[in-house]
């Protein structure tokens, strides 16, 4: 079936079977590789994208449910004020290690800061709980979100 959606501000029509996860439409069909496959069961958060501005796990979001929706991926984060601040903070603090989960971490962090511009450590933990990092970069993720909050406040 043909599905129309807006990806990173651009209208796209993709051909996909119903039941195809958005993750695989993005990676297999649209050839955008910034969104990662980690578990396939919404347990790790590596595949996080924004659906109408809200973080969702693209591996458990089905293509027929996003007809007409606005999808945003890591590739467009530098054009988003909050996204750019998070990316800057991530570089300042060298948050990444292997880096494979970090697209998803950043997409969730932007979701958090969009709702709550100045989250406490506890609020960060509560919101970011679903994004696993096997390298355990968690304390830098926490510090990175707080640094991004400062950058945005300045």
């Amino acid at each position: 079936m043909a599905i129309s959606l807006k990806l990173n501000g651009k209208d796209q029509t993709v051909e996909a079977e119903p039941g195809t996860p958005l993750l695989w439409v993005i990676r297999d069909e649209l050839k955008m590789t910034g969104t990662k496959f980690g578990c396939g069961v919404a347990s790790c958060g590596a595949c996080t994208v924004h659906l109408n501005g809200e973080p969702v796990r693209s591996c458990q979001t089905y293509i027929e449910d996003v007809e007409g929706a606005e999808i945003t991926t890591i590739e467009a984060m530098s054009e988003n004020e909050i996204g750019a601040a998070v990316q800057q903070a991530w570089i300042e603090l060298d948050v990444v290690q292997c880096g494979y989960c970090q697209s998803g971490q950043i997409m969730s962090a932007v979701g958090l800061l969009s709702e709550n511009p100045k989250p406490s450590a506890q609020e960060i933990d509560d919101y970011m709980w679903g994004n696993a990092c096997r390298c355990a970069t968690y304390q830098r993720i926490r510090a990175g979100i707080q640094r991004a909050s400062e950058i945005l406040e300045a």
Partner: protein
Amino acid sequence: MTINTSRRGFLKSAAAAGAVLVVGVRPDGALAASGSPSMLTPFVQIGSDGSVTAIVKHFEMGQGPSTGLTTLIAEEMGLTMDQIGYDFAPSNPQVYNNTLFGPMQGTGGSTAMANSFMQYRQAGAAAREMLLQAAAQAWGADASALTLQDGVISGAGHSAPLGEFVEAAAQLDAPADPPLKDPSEFRLIGNPDVRRLDSAAKGNGTAMFAMDIERPNQMIAMIARPEQQRATAVSVDASGAEGIKGFIDAQILPNAAGVAVFAETTWGAMQARDAISVEWDTSAAETRSSDEIEAEIRAALDAEPTYNVNGADVAAVRAAVDGADTVVEETFYFPLLAHAPMEPLNCTIEETADGGILLHDGCQFPTIPHGAIAEIFGIPFEKVQIKTVLAGGSFGRRATPQADYQVEAALAFSLTDRSRPVHLVWSREDDLRSGYYRPAFGHKVRVGLNADGSIVGWEHRVAGQSIMKGTPFEAFAIQNGVDHSSVEGTVDSPYQIPTAAFGLTDTEKATSTLWWRAVGHTHTAYVMEVMMDMAAKAAGIDPVDFRLAYLTGDGPDQTRKAGVLKLAAEKANWGNAPEVRSQGIAVHKSFNSYVAEVVEISGTPEDGIKIEKVTCAVDCGIAVNPDIIKAQMEGGIGYGIGHNMRDQITLTAGVVDQYNFPDYEPLRISDIGEIEVHIMPSAEAPTGVGEPGTPPAAPALANAIAAASDLRVASLPMDENGVSFV
């Protein structure tokens, strides 16, 4: 300041195509009158436009060698970090071998910086000297009057960018022994402000991991595997997959270990794999359960060990323990653990125009898959190329003695007409159920204390599944029957324990065993440090003071271990935790580095433990990239704590019980509070940082729990043995 490491080799330069200067150490250590560039070890390449590229021989799984080895070249060439780039080295064990592994190229054992520190500095220094020499000739000046700084050569009234002299420098012989910078002149080595070179790309989605490789016209392959290890495929019925979009074919692998399912897309391959049906021959399959593995290990601990590891007079040690005023005794059990790197295993294989094979892989030990692929396709070693790309974590999993996933890709590719590249992709279920695990181990320890609380005897039995036996490494890794990786961290501990006996019994393997971040230290550090804590408590002596009493020697092993122990205790305000908190401490040497950690918790095992803070002190010699060292300690602590809190792989009748992350729950951001890392100043040669942060973390947590509650967790994971976490 002296640098305690060996230097090797002569240096030689050669011109490569396009006036590129390549500098490195000749593999045979000889200085030939002439030589082709392919015989050299290019650690640094300089283009005629002045662009400098470090050629990094270690793969990047997050531990930082791409930044680290590049730092060494930049330091000696007087460059800033934004004047240099890096590429991963091709697979070539003659020139890019790990000097601590012999004739093999590979990353592991926390050796990347240890084996590269002098090699890369020498390469950078030789490049600098040759450029200065070329400039001196052009200007009719004395090279000693010239300097190279920030990419510009200046002196004797001249100044020009280094790119102007690359062509001339490429014609020169490299100096045999280029002068290295004195450590007092270092601007980058030891500089905490040097940033990772891969941060930006990993934060904006442009970093290319193996999973992101898309070769023209590639197919995806996934493997249908049996539930039980060592079952084999007899027949496949793919009719259920017909009609699935993109499904191409399903065929039994040549070794019958599984069925390769080919599709145009990853999603198509996933669906098709679920839709086919395979008949398996289970007559030779594994049928044991983890309960049986544990029972076998526990029985072995109750028997006389097979190997007397330290040649002790066991009867005398036992008599000393039996005759002691107090005997402290504990039996420990450690389950199987999966590595679960964030990026599921995968690689892409294709045929080259000349009939060779090219593998794209986040490749940890290139030499092993390189040889395996040559053998599978019956082609010379030289016709195989490996392009190493970023790896999304490993923790040991991407390096197996059998090159397991690369061989799978090669076998799948061999089923095709080779006209299309094949990208082999694993799912998370494949990863957790693949059968390569940190082996299960048990320890039984009896410690005798005299009336003043001193240790008078230490009898220590280890039983478990050897990692090295049955692998190609057996010949050199096993000595007198003992796999050192089973006992490392016990018999070779810097603690000066009198009257000690260490025994080992191998138990049967029910799965493939594999090194897992810190290898044997993952269980030995836990046992040593919990026993020291129990003995200190029995003796009524502070745990830090008790340990220091066995580190009084003036050898570096004792002074460095005592040093980090005291530093961590001081920085954690040891003994003065807030009233509602409890502290535990552990210290361990692994991979030639010394790490002490204090874990501070609140709560109780019944109501829930919260890990509030971890304070770490590390002595890893010269700290080349201090911030990366800190990051590795932070990550190593999380890795050690997370698995020991709640993870294990279990088997029921030979079938792995865990499928995906909900069954093998990763450490989450809410599980662990602040981590503070302190680096011991040192002039010693750099040692490992990727693994040494892991071993002390879980025993420090266990000791904190014991301080809070009197509960001694001796079987792992903790949440299956009386501890809840909040």
